[in-house]
């Protein structure tokens, strides 16, 4: 159910290495569905250095505010302005147009410690019980 090429955190973020050390990050379908209509994203500026598991922003739905953690260490290359302007894209297409940031990885091997899609599928099924 969750894309094979991504890695996942227990906090329901995903990361996908596009090429070399460049990656995209976002929140999972489970996360967007649990949050409901997303209406605001508070995100770091381009160029910010972040560490793996560091709180880097907040996502607000109509009902709730939730923290966003970085799935890996590196530098923010780009913040997706499309989701900043239209936060609902994260609900509509969490793995596609709803990506949140591009991250230049400073330590690509960190990603290996994250969950595979199979493991994350299992976690989601477990949480749904």
């Amino acid at each position: 159910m969750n894309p094979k090429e991504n890695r996942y955190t227990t906090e329901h973020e995903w990361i996908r290495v596009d090429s070399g050390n460049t990656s995209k990050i976002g929140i999972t379908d489970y996360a967007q569905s649990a949050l409901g209509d997303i209406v605001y994203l508070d995100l770091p500026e381009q160029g910010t250095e972040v560490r793996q598991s560091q709180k880097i922003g907040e996502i607000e739905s109509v009902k709730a505010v939730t923290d966003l953690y970085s799935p890996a260490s590196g530098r923010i290359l780009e913040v997706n302005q499309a989701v900043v302007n239209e936060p609902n894209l994260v609900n509509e297409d969490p793995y596609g147009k709803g990506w949140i940031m591009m991250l230049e990885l400073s330590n690509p091997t960190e990603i290996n410690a994250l969950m595979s899609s199979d493991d994350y599928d299992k976690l989601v099924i477990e949480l749904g019980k």
Partner: protein
Amino acid sequence: MKELKKTALNQLHHELKAKMGDFAGWEMPIWYVSIIEEHNKVRSSIGIFDVSDMGRVEVIGKHASAFLDKLLTKPVAKLEPGSSQLCLMCLEDGGILDDLFVYRIGNERYLIVWNADNTKRKLDWLQHWAIEYPDVIIKDVSNTTGMLAVQGPKVSELDTLKCVAHLSRFSHTETEIGNAKVFVARTGYTGEDGFEIITDAVGIEDLWRLLMQNGAAPCGIGARDSLRLEAGMALYGQDIDTSTNPYEAGLGYLVNLNDGNFIGKQALLIIKNNGVQRKLVGFRMLSREIARRGYKIMKDDRKIGTVTSGGYAPTIGSGIGLGYVPAGLADIGTDIEIVIRNCPVKARVDNRRFLLGEIENEPKRK
């Protein structure tokens, strides 16, 4: 954790795949599909809510009117059978114990519909004062009945509700819909036209299904909250409670100091004469950030209040909120700041009935 109470529609909500959550000790649907979608449905068409969490108490007896006039801030003796009023129940010091609807069903029979919290305290309060009125019977019918709200501008177009379309605002009747005996009132908590329907807990699921088939969209408490906030209606337990008085909460219109001698009247006379120190105001965010309950309200680097209700307003398209500020800073147009993520963010005091001009507002409704 204490087990959550369930309404008679609980199974149906699960069947409809609602996201469920805790509301005042009840397991309630927060949303079915999306809060914004449900909110918009009620503003443009028709939504249906399970509001069975609200308490329903019958007050019956020869002295029921006198008893209620002792407890409520507006005399019921003037209500005709078939009509209702929104009013408050206050403590001796003028603090608000609840805001409630009282429906006069017959000369000696009333129905109170009040908020889900504090039920025991409120029932005890009623029982306590009823000692002086030995013929008055207080009957909590919350568990044997259920309650629906059908709300939205197209509500009287529903086939099922044609038979009550003649009801004017705040009036009510007892009739039959489908196979169910129902109490229907033209009241609600969304800022839209609508009906509230009380029926036997056993028959409420069929009634819900019938209304859904007719085109009413299921709506959860998420939309209930965003709708009432946009309409500037205070939520008990958040914007008002026993530590707030009606005048600072902008609910003076629910208090009648001219007649009778209800509990809290003496204190409220003094409060009204002295003028209030703080006022509950509505504010609108000037950027896209969203104010939430508990956030600080600032003016010129000084804390002037706290947000009591805040959130995203789908019809307005920005963040709005309510909060108490000093009376001198309560005028519409006053620039304030809300502290969000440790940063003061610009906001402006607005007409608390945020949609005024777009929707008709409650107190002016007949």
